[in-house]
């Protein structure tokens, strides 16, 4: 049923009910992992949705998700198409921000432990109502409209921070009235918190440069210390997703869907528009969340390195639906691109890419698993043709949490990581095992497959030296 078209390209031919075919961009090794769960079925389900354009896409980090697979991309026609909370994910705008420092490996290593301790104290995992940064509901509404720009205006950062963020850290068309009181209550105490699970803050060393011109444009060089923050919209975003799934089920019913989790609304319907607006608010919350975490990180690093400067290289969305211009047939058309566990990968020349990077293409950060390398890549023209300008978002899980707990040995994983001279601060023993490198696909393999196809191209590799797990 899956046809190999070319190296790293697999096709799921159109069957009854599918409006378009399915495409998987992955290596032959990874395809075998992808076949193990419901990913293929979910790609076909997405292909059956009204108004889908071109193809239903899965990337090398794909695995089973809620309705739509993780590592999935689907674009919909604005007139005939739909928008689906399951196509965005529960953690709206779960995303990654990369900061560069002016510190080199040599001077950092002697203070590694001290920095780890300060970060551990200053970076709240913030489970529950756990942020030291508490705001009023009036301010929360402003933050939902203004994203990271709002916090920069309040003094928690600099203009360049949001200029180097997807959508400049503020999605327009974000009406806080479309976000329920319950969602606001879940999120109000969580601005500036990582959350638990797979969210983290890593300190890394740039250990290999693949593309000198791009590395120069992104301001990084070998042995430089960089910091990566991965988190999302916390309880607020989760509740927005739950609320709109509920509202869409009530309005449209799920009896005729191939899978209840595919629940959706026409993009041009009132409910579709309301969801988009609420989703944008949650996305802005996530941008602001990382802005606050950047502020805490700057304070922490300055305690040890008083002259340190931390600049945002870029900040990208993983779980989002966006109205973007793409080539459809021969015309350029506005479409609604759902990226779920996928990263935008815009090539040179696109107006959405910050001026500073426009000749090179958008920076794309691909975090590895705990203890393995992460990559900095650049967006490409090629991805416009292949994947509505999208690439992978990480390694992607292969092992269930319950299996990890049953089969993996805590002391062994811990020792392996310590042998790599990485300082780890993790919330709990079980959380540590559940996020062990063994439960993820091989990041190098995932990145190579994207680089080979040109969905994104390698710029630099980074090795972790401190991992703060949420």
């Amino acid at each position, binding site marked *: 049923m899956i046809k190999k078209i070319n190296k790293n390209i697999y096709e799921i031919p159109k069957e009854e009910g599918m409006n378009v075919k399915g495409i998987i961009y992955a290596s032959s090794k990874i395809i075998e992992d992808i076949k193990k*769960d419901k990913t293929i079925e979910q790609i076909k389900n997405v292909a059956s949705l009204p108004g889908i354009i071109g193809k239903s896409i899965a990337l090398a980090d794909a695995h089973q998700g809620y309705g739509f697979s993780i590592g999935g991309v689907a674009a919909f026609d604005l007139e005939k198409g739909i928008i689906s909370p399951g196509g965005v994910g529960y953690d709206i705008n779960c995303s990654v921000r990369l900061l560069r420092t002016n510190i080199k490996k040599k001077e950092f290593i002697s203070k590694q432990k001290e920095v780890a301790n300060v970060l551990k104290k200053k970076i709240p995992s913030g489970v529950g*109502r756990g942020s030291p940064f508490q705001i009023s509901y009036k301010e929360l509404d402003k933050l939902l409209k203004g994203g990271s720009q709002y916090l920069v205006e309040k003094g928690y950062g600099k203009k360049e921070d949001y200029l180097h963020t997807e959508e400049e850290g503020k999605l327009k068309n974000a009406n806080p009235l479309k976000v329920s009181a319950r969602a606001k209550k*879940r999120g109000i105490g969580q601005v500036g918190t990582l959350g*638990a*699970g797979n969210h983290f803050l890593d300190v890394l060393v740039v250990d290999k440069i693949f593309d000198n011109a791009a590395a120069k444009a992104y301001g990084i060089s070998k042995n430089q210390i960089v910091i990566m923050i991965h988190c999302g919209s916390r309880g607020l975003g*989760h509740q927005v*997703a739950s609320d709109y799934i509920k509202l869409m089920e009530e309005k449209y019913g799920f009896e005729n869907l191939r899978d209840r*989790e595919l629940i959706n609304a026409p993009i041009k319907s009132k409910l579709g528009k309301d969801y988009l607006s609420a989703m944008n608010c949650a996305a802005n919350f996530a941008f602001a969340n990382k802005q606050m975490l950047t502020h805490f990180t700057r304070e922490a690093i300055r305690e040890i390195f008083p002259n340190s400067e931390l600049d945002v290289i870029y900040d990208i969305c993983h779980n989002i639906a966006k109205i973007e211009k793409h080539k459809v047939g021969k015309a350029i058309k506005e479409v609604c691109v759902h990226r779920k566990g996928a990263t935008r990968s815009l090539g040179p020349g696109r107006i959405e890419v910050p001026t500073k990077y426009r000749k090179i293409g958008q920076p794309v950060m691909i975090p590895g698993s705990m203890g393995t390398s992460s990559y900095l890549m650049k967006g490409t023209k090629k991805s416009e043709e292949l994947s509505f300008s999208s690439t992978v978002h990480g390694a992607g899980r292969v*092992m269930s949490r319950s299996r990890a707990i049953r089969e993996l040995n805590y002391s062994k994983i811990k020792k392996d990581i310590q042998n790599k001279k990485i300082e780890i601060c993790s919330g709990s023993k079980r*959380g540590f095992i559940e996020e062990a490198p063994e439960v993820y696909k091989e990041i190098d393999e995932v990145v190579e497959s994207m680089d080979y196809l040109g969905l994104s191209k390698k710029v630099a590799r980074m090795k972790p030296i401190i991992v703060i797990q949420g």
Partner: protein
Amino acid sequence: MEKFEFLEHTADIKFQAFGETLEEAFSNSALALSNSITEEKIKSKKELKFQVKGKNMENLLYNFLEEFLFLFDSESFLLSKVKEMKINKEKFELSCVVEGDEANKYSFHSDIKAITYNEMFIKKEKHWIIQGVFDV
């Protein structure tokens, strides 16, 4: 009979909860949720009372479990015990008293984002079995 157990799922948490009565199975589902967030034994320091309504039994379960996510994020409340659970099976209404503690005293391993209808069932064989998947 165990209170609950966890099953295979690539990315999320799939559980089954058991009970001699529907009420007990509902309560044990909430404990499975609590255990998915932290493995530590939660103390009973606070008591809360709440009611939930649903359109059908699955919807009632969904709303009941979602209440704990809400209490966790907004009040930092972590559940230790469900008591005085009453379910009106015709009207799909539920009331209960729950005991628990401040969340920040414990360490966590996952962030449950949402309750889902994925693979959810509520059935009676020899005893009641509830199955569900938490999105993490």
